[in-house]
């Protein structure tokens, strides 16, 4: 499957892949701590495992950023 991940084209051997599985493949250790856009639309975190990807989908993910002094 060909996907565009954070702007970079990548090829995956899987023919079926959901967003949660993709995040694991992308070495995201805590999927709950990233926001995901699929083709420019935000996904809700509970949906990560239910949304399956297709060829040429564009997936962008960014980590939660926060802290305190």
């Amino acid at each position, binding site marked *: 499957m060909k996907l565009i991940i954070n702007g970079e084209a990548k090829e995956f051997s899987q023919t079926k892949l959901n967003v949660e599985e993709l995040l694991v493949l992308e070495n995201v250790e805590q999927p709950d701590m990233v*926001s995901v856009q699929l083709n420019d639309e935000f996904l809700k975190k509970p949906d990560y495992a239910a949304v399956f990807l297709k060829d040429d989908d564009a997936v*962008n993910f*960014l980590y*939660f*950023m*926060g*802290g*305190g*002094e």
Partner: protein
Amino acid sequence: MLRIPQSVYDSIVEHALADSPIEACGYLSGREGDAKTSYRLKNTDASGEHFSFDPEEQFAAFKDAMSLGLKLIACYHSHPQTPARPSAEDIKLAYDPAISYVIISLAEDVPVVKSFKIKNGDVSPEEIEVL
């Protein structure tokens, strides 16, 4: 090593001063340790002790950087009252192992800017070169 142009360095310090006593926060974009631009983001916590990014603004910055051929290479935030070192909360919430974490302290008369890499709770200071 994080290299920051003087104009970008001045901009993030100015942001920290302007938003004080609220913590200021944002991104630096660039390529492999060379910062090129900064993005001022809203601190959705509107707090002097905490900050959080707005995901909508995060993606807007990400896409703008990408359109310029750049990546988000650092997250910055200010410590209005405390030194430029990651707090326990900063370390706990540092989920991105690839990015640099820049802290601007306003605790002294002159702002102090330091950078760190944080991976799995381990903090490594990172030298800053202002160009």
